[in-house]
């Protein structure tokens, strides 16, 4: 009997590994290998016309002195802040409304908010590019009608960041709202009742009951939108339309776009890999800061 159960245990363990192995195999080929390979390439000078040549840390020292990288870092952070903060606030509001409203067709509205997210990002960028066109864009037309002067959305530095952020916000607010909604529905009704009895207003309930209760979800979405925001690529790429510089003054060149430019337009594979590693370090640092802050809050 005892040996039998041991056998069974071993069989279980083996089958457990077998069940999970597809993920690990795929991760090894498409996740782990490219990561390790990126490090290897970053220490080489390599283009499509010659064999890779070991150059040690040259790519990194050149990169540290490259003002285009620091401009891209600055732009990336600017766009990330401009998009993430409003996005989370809007999403919370939207989730609150969806959770508490008694409007008919709840399921319908809950699916509708996801539509921007399943729209092709290329289509989004093309349409927004036209809406925000300097000469004949609808937004500038509206601004002129209202008595403001038109804005050069693409050529202005801050204006272009705002435009890209609007695209990101439009695309991701609904997605985050659904995640918050799921979390909000798990908040026990008694807490609201207790707050009500204590005389808390709806807003006070939101701040003191809802937010603390969904904090783990909030942290999750903040981390995910940090990763996404710092990797922003498709929107600035398509907004430029002419190349990968991110505008003539590189005013919306992001780190990922700079990496793509170096890798697939300048064909400096090694340099591009070094940029990828620098971006990784940046994102890990930000996530660490995130992590430390969160731990502090939880202890307090």
């Amino acid at each position, binding site marked *: 009997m005892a040996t039998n159960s041991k056998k069974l245990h071993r069989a279980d363990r083996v089958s457990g590994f077998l069940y999970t192995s597809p993920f690990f195999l795929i*991760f090894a080929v*498409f*996740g*782990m290998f*490219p*990561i390790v*390979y*990126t490090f290897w390439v970053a220490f080489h000078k390599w283009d*499509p*016309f010659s064999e890779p040549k070991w150059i040690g840390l040259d790519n990194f020292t050149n990169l540290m002195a*490259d003002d*285009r990288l620091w401009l891209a870092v600055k732009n990336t952070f600017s766009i990330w802040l401009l998009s993430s903060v409003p996005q989370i606030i809007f999403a919370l509001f939207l989730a609150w409304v969806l959770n508490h409203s008694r409007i008919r067709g709840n399921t319908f509205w809950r699916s509708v908010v996801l539509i921007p997210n399943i729209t092709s990002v*290329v289509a989004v960028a*093309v349409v927004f*590019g*036209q809406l925000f*066109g*300097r*000469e*004949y864009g609808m937004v500038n037309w509206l601004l002129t009608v209202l008595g403001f002067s038109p804005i*050069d959305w693409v*050529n202005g530095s801050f204006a272009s960041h705002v435009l890209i952020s609007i695209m990101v916000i439009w695309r991701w607010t609904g997605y985050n709202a659904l995640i918050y909604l799921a979390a909000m529905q798990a908040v026990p009704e008694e807490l609201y009742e207790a707050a009500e009895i204590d005389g808390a207003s709806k807003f006070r309930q939101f701040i003191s009951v809802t937010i603390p209760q969904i904090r783990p979800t909030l942290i999750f979405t903040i*981390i995910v939108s940090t*990763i996404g925001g710092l*990797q922003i*690529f*498709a929107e600035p*790429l*398509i907004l430029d*339309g*002419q*190349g*990968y*510089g991110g505008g*003539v*003054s590189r005013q919306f060149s992001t780190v*990922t776009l700079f*990496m*793509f430019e*170096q890798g*697939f*337009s*300048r*064909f*400096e594979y090694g340099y591009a*890999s070094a940029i*990828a*590693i620098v*971006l*990784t370090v940046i*994102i*890990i640092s930000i*996530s*660490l800061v995130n*992590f430390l802050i*969160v*731990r502090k809050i*939880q202890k307090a």
Partner: protein
Amino acid sequence: MATAKRYMGFVSLAAASGLILSGCAATTETSSTSSASNGGTEASADQKVLQFWAFGDMGLGDLIAEYEEMNPDIKINMKVSDFDPHHQGLLTSLDSAAPDIAAIEVGYSSLFKAVAGKFTDLAEYGAADVAGDYLDWRWNHGVDLDGRIFGIPTDVGPMTICYRSDLFAEAGLPTDRDEVSALWPTWEDFIAVGEQYVAATGNKFLSSTGYVWNAVKNQSTEKFYSADGSSLIYETNPQIQKAWDLSVAATPIAANIGDWTADWNAGMNNGAYAVLTCPAWMMGYIQGQAPDLTGAWDVATMPEGSGNWGGSQLTVPARAQYPEEAAKFILWILSAENQLKLFKASGQFPSTLAAYEDAELLAFESEYFNNAPVGSIYAEGVKQLAPIYEGPKERVIDQEFGAALGRIANGDQSEADAWAEAVNNIKRDVG
């Protein structure tokens, strides 16, 4: 519990960094790629499907349909991408998923010459026999230093000035094409006419200063590289300096509208600008964007003679699935006879010598362009073209100077700063 939480944190960190790195390494997404299938018929099992990559539809639809009808076992599947992504994607796919046929524009020709070994030598399929049919300098865009023929020339792009005669009339300028041509023997005259136009109408004359830059830099035998390709001369070449100075001088008369944008297309209709430098292939584009303006656009000569803009080679990558069928197809579609057909249908000007003697071509008038004798105008333009050396990193250098002119137009930088930044970036990326 606390340990579990800490552990979760690190897991999400690890997962996050995994996302970043694998995302970076695997990113090969390019912008708007559409695929157009020609002929409209589905491929059947016994058909050979030739994959054809291009950066515009090249107006080849009718000829492809004709070829498919003549050769029922062949199906051509055309994939159209944006200009730069097309060439960059082609370069990176030559060792893996290469198409059967690929277009390479002259500005990229030297880049691909460096990897000509990754293309089929078309001499194996009789290309050497037809070399004499084509303009020799256009033919040479598809021949590497060892004499390997890796591409056959499509059209040639002698430039003229397309202008809006209706808007010229409103500005009190002459409208007749010979009188308009006589207005601008030099580029300085051209800019002066532009200033006159802007003063009279309040509208801009050019869509962007890039048009002056592109035209003047191509009116020489050398631009960024010395003619033998041995050195970079963009800092010292007087023609580049001239193109730069004229472009900067044209800033006040240009609308600062980027090429191929929605604003640019709209401007062809609504008079946001009044002229365009106009290689033959541009005619079809204007006509497509402003179909209601028949007779409003007309064609005059360009200051200081013509210059070439554009034209491609069709190539067969070495890893093509059907190299023989692909080679046969491109030799057919780029034959003198078919290039002539293509010109009449969509305006690409032939690179084949016989066309320039063709009575029908010389007599060809475009109804859309106010019945301008475009056949003889472009045939005259071709005679003025001198071969110009295209270097391997031509496009990168050009993009940096283009961006610099954009910064001046936006008022972001002074002329000196813009030049310095362009040169600095080129030095870093090219040498």
